[in-house]
């Protein structure tokens, strides 16, 4: 988890990606764990988008409707469209208000709407859906829902769709989590230290480098977000201020650096294999001592001193 400059800068300069999570659209994956629960963040984001005037649909599968609506004031509660799959998930009571097709059918029905306008769908939890549906079907449905606005040839203009999914990381193996995160446009992993929660936000835009940021936050009882600076930056473990970094080039028994004169001398040295004009002249000039050099050779007992060329016998 890296603390980027955005988290360290003042709050006024960049409110961070947590505020603008929903503006990108697509699938936003909230990964939480037992220590850092994500439902309050989910409710905070739902409240924010409801206050912005977007249409908000909730697919509640894991907790009851009363528990989910707790903490919201009546204004927001009236804006939420709640699809309850907690009370009767297998539709045993067979009432007419039950939606056909289960949660996926409800998702598709939401997307077949005709009014343009941004819409936010909160899946209360993706973990519940993963445990009850095959992973591939869920991935295909999520992809179809979240990419509906990218088709240019549609008959009616459809607004931006954001899907917020809550995923409990410990319930699933690396496979489904990896598959869902490769589909997601934004991935928020909850963590924290010493009582303060942080959100590591990884934003994948298509064909661009993913950007990540860590944002410290806390949530008020009325589910509004409070972005924070983060705990005081502790001294990094590897740069201890008491011990200065060791420079290995000191206290050497040999000379490591070149002085300017030495470097000039080195650069002006002509290497033996470089063919320069002086060398050419030296080679072309007849050398004075050439006639006086001899080679003395004493043959061994096993040397063959036959002067004939053995290849002379060949007749080509």
């Amino acid at each position, binding site marked *: 988890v890296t603390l980027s400059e955005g988290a360290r800068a003042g709050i006024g300069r960049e409110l961070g990606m947590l505020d603008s999570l929903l503006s990108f659209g697509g699938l936003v994956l909230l990964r939480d764990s037992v220590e850092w629960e994500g439902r309050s963040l989910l409710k905070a984001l739902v409240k924010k988008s409801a206050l912005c005037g977007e249409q908000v649909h909730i697919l509640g599968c894991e907790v009851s409707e009363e528990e989910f609506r707790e903490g919201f004031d009546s204004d927001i509660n009236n804006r939420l469209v709640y699809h309850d799959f907690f009370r009767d998930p297998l539709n045993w009571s067979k009432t007419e208000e039950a939606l056909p097709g289960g949660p996926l059918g409800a998702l598709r029905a939401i997307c077949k709407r005709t009014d343009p306008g941004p819409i936010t769908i909160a899946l209360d939890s993706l973990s519940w859906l993963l445990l009850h549906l095959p992973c591939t079907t869920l991935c295909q449905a999520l992809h179809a829902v979240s990419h509906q606005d990218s088709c240019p040839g549609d008959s009616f203009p459809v607004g931006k769709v954001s899907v917020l999914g809550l995923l409990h990381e410990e319930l699933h*193996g690396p496979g489904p989590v990896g598959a869902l995160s490769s*589909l997601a446009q934004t991935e928020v992993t909850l963590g924290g230290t010493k009582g303060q929660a942080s959100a590591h936000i990884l934003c994948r835009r298509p064909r*661009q480098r993913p950007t990540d940021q860590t944002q410290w936050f806390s949530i008020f009882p009325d589910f509004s977000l409070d972005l924070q600076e983060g705990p005081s930056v502790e001294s990094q473990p590897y740069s201890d201020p008491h011990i200065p970094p060791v420079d290995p080039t000191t206290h050497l028994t040999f000379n490591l650096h070149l002085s300017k004169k030495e470097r000039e001398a*080195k650069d002006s040295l002509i290497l033996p294999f470089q063919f320069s004009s002086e060398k050419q002249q030296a080679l072309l000039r007849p050398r004075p001592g050439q006639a006086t050099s001899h080679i003395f050779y004493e043959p061994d007992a096993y040397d063959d001193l036959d002067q004939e060329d053995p290849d002379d016998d060949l007749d080509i």
Partner: protein
Amino acid sequence: MAAVATCGSGAGTTGSAVATASKSNVTSFQRRGPRASGTNDSGPRLVSIAGTRPSVRNGQLLVSTGLPALDQLLGGGLAIGTVLLIEEDKYNIYSPLLFKCFLAEGIVNGHTLLVASAKEDPANILQELPAPLLDDNSKKEFDEDVYNHKTPESNIKMKIAWRYQLLPKMEQIGPVSSRFGHYYDASKRIPQELIEASNWHGFFLPEKISSTLKVEPCSLTPGYIKLLQFIQNIIYEERFDGSNPQKKQRNVLRIGIQNLGSPLWGDDICCAENGSNSHSLTKFLYVLRGLLRTSLSACIITMPTHLIQNKAIIARITNLSDTVIGLESFIGSERETNPLYKDYHGLIHIRQIPRLNNLICDESDVKDLAFKLKRKLFTIEWVQDNYLRQERNIYPPGFSYLLKQKDSAWGEGSLQHSTFLMSFLAKATAFASRLVRHSEPLKQTGSGRIHQAAGPRLWHDGRRQEAPGLLGIPP
């Protein structure tokens, strides 16, 4: 290649044969059956399709992959009838670029395209293809672009190791033949008229399949079945399988399949380790390769292998594909801060090259290839500091650190460097030869010729004469 047989000038009895031979243009071998074309040339007729060329090594017909550097690494190009599998990088940023370059190359050469995807509409994919650099002006810009990015250190000419500068660069920035291999500008889109002039077929899975289909176990997933049927129909309808010999102008079908194996295709190998359909993808590749081998087509597949949970499946997939390339990007990994890789965006691994009608494959001997996506261009290069890394293999680790210091007195060409080198290598040789001498018997007898280890200047009468200098004195 068909050999043109000439009938030799013979005796008078063959006079009539000569007469008939001269009438039928040179050869005395009569072709059985009607001639396909009534042309006069009976010499060897090569298949010449736009955008292809025969390989100089094994005669296979090759098409360009869209990146000339990649073509070079694969031994000239991608052979027709084979599959190029690209293992996607983690955030899927660079593999779509290779995919699009392949398709753009098909459009520029006039090949037929078949684009299959479960994620994006093929029409959208085609709109985003990169524009080709066709004229000389853009070529000059591209040359400048390349040379402007050279770091200052690489401009120091090496004086001692000057032969390393003569090594060929990866990019052939010379004149690229306009018929094979083009450069593409990743920042511009392909002109619309080129797309409209091309012949393409698209397969978008959510349109072709209804979601309520039941999946039978131990069989191909319905998405794969539909795709194979689609490909087979196109091959048959447009005569890529050679079923219509009368047709003179042949063309190549380029197939591109994106994100194969991801959950959007209905395959759960990325979700579970032992899924119900774990053989679906391998069967698909097997059938696809059969379809490709019997037609004039080449296929590119991108696959998110980093998501596949069962590693044995990855090995099977590699064996079932012909050419396999893996992309590893540095984003988010610790290699991002490694100074060795500071100019590059990722590594490219060539995992497999096929042996087509050959006993050996065309593998290049360079193992450390990295790629970078500059503003316009995707280039593949050797990781630099090749020279120093080779040194690190010989020298103790601390020494190469000293070598890398700027203005070091231990740089190449200095007296310290060469003295150290000589003494270090001499010690290494002496150590090795000491090991050899230990295997000799202590006594040297006249008949013990075969027991004596090979040493310098061994004489038959048992006397040994040591070479003066670096080797140690025998005990």
